[in-house]
């Protein structure tokens, strides 16, 4: 049975695992390099800050940049209060029981729902039944529901990481539970909450299916939340898929990847600060 010595088994295992890891990293590296190599030369101030012309064939991506900023912002404005509130309730205001289990299970399920279902729901509910039309508001609300689980989970984790003694000190000084939450727990959990917010922004930025059916794809600056917007992901999808302009498509993709890079670096830095504080 044991034809190979443990030493050789180990060598083979390392070889196979190493090769798999290398292959993975190369594929992922290829994707980034492929996009940046073709897209970086398109990026310039004028590409970022001028309006597109001829449906994105020429000109810049300014309205989509604005759309990409506004849509997550709106989604967060709804999802953060709800998500943080839920996490506070789960951790500070109730005991583990049937209710918390149901809430957690619901949150997990919501996290697993495919984005196209959110799109389907948002399109029929917000766009058609509530007669909002394709607009920023419909898109923002749909995305808010989509990122709610992320915010809840990360906030809950962050709140749990706040040592219990902090709360005890606060209680012993006569503070109410609410005051303790607001003045002690939440400030200490803030970096973790911000991490969740960042993850949520990341999901909003990368989302296409749910956005295109709720926020639409109008290629101009929105004047109100009832205007349709196009995010960079949707813009890229349309440019690339319809062959409008390969050059501008790659440029948009490069901007997307760079913004996600920025977002990730920030998140990572915050997470480390957070962990550093806990230790």
């Amino acid at each position, binding site marked *: 049975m044991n034809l190979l010595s443990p030493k050789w088994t180990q060598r083979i295992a390392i070889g196979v695992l190493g090769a798999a890891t290398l292959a993975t990293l190369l594929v992922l590296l290829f994707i980034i390099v492929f996009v940046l190599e073709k897209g970086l030369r398109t990026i310039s101030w004028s590409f970022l800050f001028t309006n597109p012309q001829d449906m994105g064939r020429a000109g810049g991506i300014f309205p989509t940049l604005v759309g990409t900023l506004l849509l997550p912002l709106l989604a967060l404005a709804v999802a953060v209060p709800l998500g943080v509130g839920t996490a506070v309730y789960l951790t500070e205001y109730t005991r583990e029981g049937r209710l918390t289990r149901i809430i957690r299970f619901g949150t997990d399920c919501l996290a697993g729902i495919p984005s196209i279902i959110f799109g389907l729901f948002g399109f029929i509910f917000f766009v058609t039944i509530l007669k909002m039309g*394709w607009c920023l508001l419909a898109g923002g609300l749909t995305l808010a529901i989509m990122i709610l689980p992320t915010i809840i989970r990360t906030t809950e984790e962050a709140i749990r990481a706040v040592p219990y003694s902090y709360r005890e000190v606060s209680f012993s*000084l006569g503070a109410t539970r609410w005051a303790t939450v607001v003045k002690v727990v939440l400030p200490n959990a803030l970096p973790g909450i911000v991490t969740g917010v960042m993850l949520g922004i990341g999901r909003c930025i990368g989302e296409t299916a749910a956005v295109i059916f709720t926020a639409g*794809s109008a290629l101009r600056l929105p*004047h*109100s*939340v009832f205007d349709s917007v196009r995010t960079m992901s949707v813009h890229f999808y349309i440019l690339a898929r*319809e*062959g409008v302009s390969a050059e501008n498509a790659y440029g948009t993709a490069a901007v997307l990847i760079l913004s996600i890079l920025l977002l990730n670096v920030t998140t990572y830095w915050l997470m480390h600060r957070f962990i550093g504080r806990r230790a």
Partner: protein
Amino acid sequence: MQKSISGIRAKMLTRLALVGCAVAVALCGCGRKSASITLAGSTAFQPFAEKLAEQYMAAHPEVGVTVQGGGSAVGIQSALSGAAQIGMADLLELPPEAQGLTSVIVARDGIALVVHPANPVTNLALAQAREIFAGTLSNWKDAGGADQPITVVSREAGSGTRSSFEKLIGVSKLSPDAIVQDSSGTIRETVINDQRAIGYLSHGLVNDKIKMLKVDDQECSTDKVIAGKYPLVRPIFLLTKGAPEGLAQAFIAYILSAEGQQCIHKNGLIPAK
């Protein structure tokens, strides 16, 4: 301590409430401020509508015209439901559910059969086209090309271009092997990327990276379409619920004006006359 905390809490809550009200007011206020309409539907007409909207907004910067794709069925649906003020549909004839809508023909459009430039085939008889799209003719060598399988590329169910095309060439059931794409531009990209592919799309959206086929020896060109020689032509409808009013009326009038029709003509569509 308690008092100050509850005081802070009250202040915070008040502040939150104020911010909330301010945001709500701002949102409502903004919502009413700008006049804007949405066009939705036919992806064949979408690029032209976008161009027209761009020109119209350049002349009237105070208004917003939003153009959304989705296909002709979306055009009819969104005009009916009010999701869009103007629906766009490119259909031979409007379906029964669109009878309640006011319709106006703004352009005519040839449907071009397109292949990869490297494909040696230049002409198809209408009957051959029918067999190809029905799936009974499945190798290019039977249509005068190289010995390789044909990849049929079609639009999705619900597309006006598809239903017009199928009616015009007489296909009752599309080949089950057909690749399906959901816009004219995507059909074009798929054909550009595949030497064996054949697809169809609005004549106005053909570019120099793909090759148009003659149908029954008739070239798909503006002249032939106007002369009534090219067989695959369908009208483009704009649909409104009731008579168009306000901005919708103004925009449709603009499309039908000499300037709008010239823009349509310049970009490869045939004016409604």
